């Protein structure tokens, strides 16, 4: 089991480095997708099916969106030769990060043996307190419902801002509606067709 996990983690590391080093943007996006799928398998093996499912579906939609967003620029090669100072700074930062990580992970309790009292309480009482057999859901939506409310607010605000910013493209808003009647907002005309408004 440990060997599988270590192998998978090494695969993820290699994939991440490969994604950074890819010259072609589309290949890099596909590599990111592979890393994400590997990560979801890792979550599954570590006994977190909720996160594994979320990771899979989010990875699918993110890769789709990124491919859709990079197809125009896929031919452009990204990256340029690095200077010596950049390389030195990068390697130094990595060594520092690995050192801190090793120290931090050594201080963690063993996997599956949490020291915090609330974790045990949740495991033993969640079903009776909320009726949810899935403890993760009982925490996300019941014990920590405020947090989920905040998360929902973040998504709402982010999407609302994006829609407001895109309003001259989507043709929403009063002038867009008047101009295009009941046509679907999905079919915004390209900006070139719009008469410039003074």
């Amino acid at each position, binding site marked *: 089991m440990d060997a599988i996990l270590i192998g998978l983690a090494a695969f993820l590391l290699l994939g991440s480095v490969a994604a950074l080093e890819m010259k072609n943007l589309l290949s890099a996006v596909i590599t990111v997708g592979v890393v994400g799928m590997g990560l979801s398998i890792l979550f599954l093996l570590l006994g977190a099916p909720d996160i594994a499912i979320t990771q899979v579906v989010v990875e699918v*939609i993110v890769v789709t969106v990124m491919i859709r967003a990079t197809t125009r620029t896929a031919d452009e090669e990204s990256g340029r030769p690095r200077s010596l100072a950049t390389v030195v700074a990068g390697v130094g930062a990595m060594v520092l990060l690995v050192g801190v990580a090793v120290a931090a992970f050594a201080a963690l309790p063993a996997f599956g043996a949490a020291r915090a009292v609330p974790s045990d309480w949740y495991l033993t009482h969640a079903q009776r307190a909320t009726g949810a057999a899935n403890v993760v859901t009982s925490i996300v939506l019941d014990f920590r419902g405020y947090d989920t409310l905040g998360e929902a607010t973040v998504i709402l605000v982010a999407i609302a801002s994006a829609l407001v910013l895109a309003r001259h493209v989507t043709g929403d808003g009063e002038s867009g509606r008047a101009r295009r009647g009941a046509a679907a907002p999905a079919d915004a005309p390209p900006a070139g067709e719009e008469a410039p*408004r003074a």
Partner: protein
Amino acid sequence: MPSDRDGLSVIVQVVTRWILVLIVVYGFGVAFFGHLTPGGGFAGGVVIACGFVLATLAFGGRSGPAAAFHRRVASLEAAGALTYLGMAAIGWTVGHFMQAWTPRGADFTLASAPFLVVLNLAILLKVGAGLFAGFMVLVLFDRAPAAPRDGKGGG
């Protein structure tokens, strides 16, 4: 990219129409039983958003099932947020904000935690509509290489 406007071939479109039903049903299933099995509103919402992204790619933005969804994206997103907030606010009538006020059925059944089921569905609406709206915004920005700078904020 012509597929953007006209959609893909009719074979892809027919298969997409069939599969979209299964994807949406699966997304609702993941959300409905999120309090019993792994999954939940977020995962279910992303599954449904994926389905409509697929439909957008297959049919283009102009027609197909995704266009109808896109027209209602703002109201669906708002409905999800208001449902969550409303369910939480009704908790005040029996105690405090966010209190699970619905009656509970037998354990390990759908009715064991109706409060969580409704919250999961609210999040499904929010996340499904929200992510799809994000996708559409990216697509639309992509379609507009030079935004008009002299229009005073499009209003």
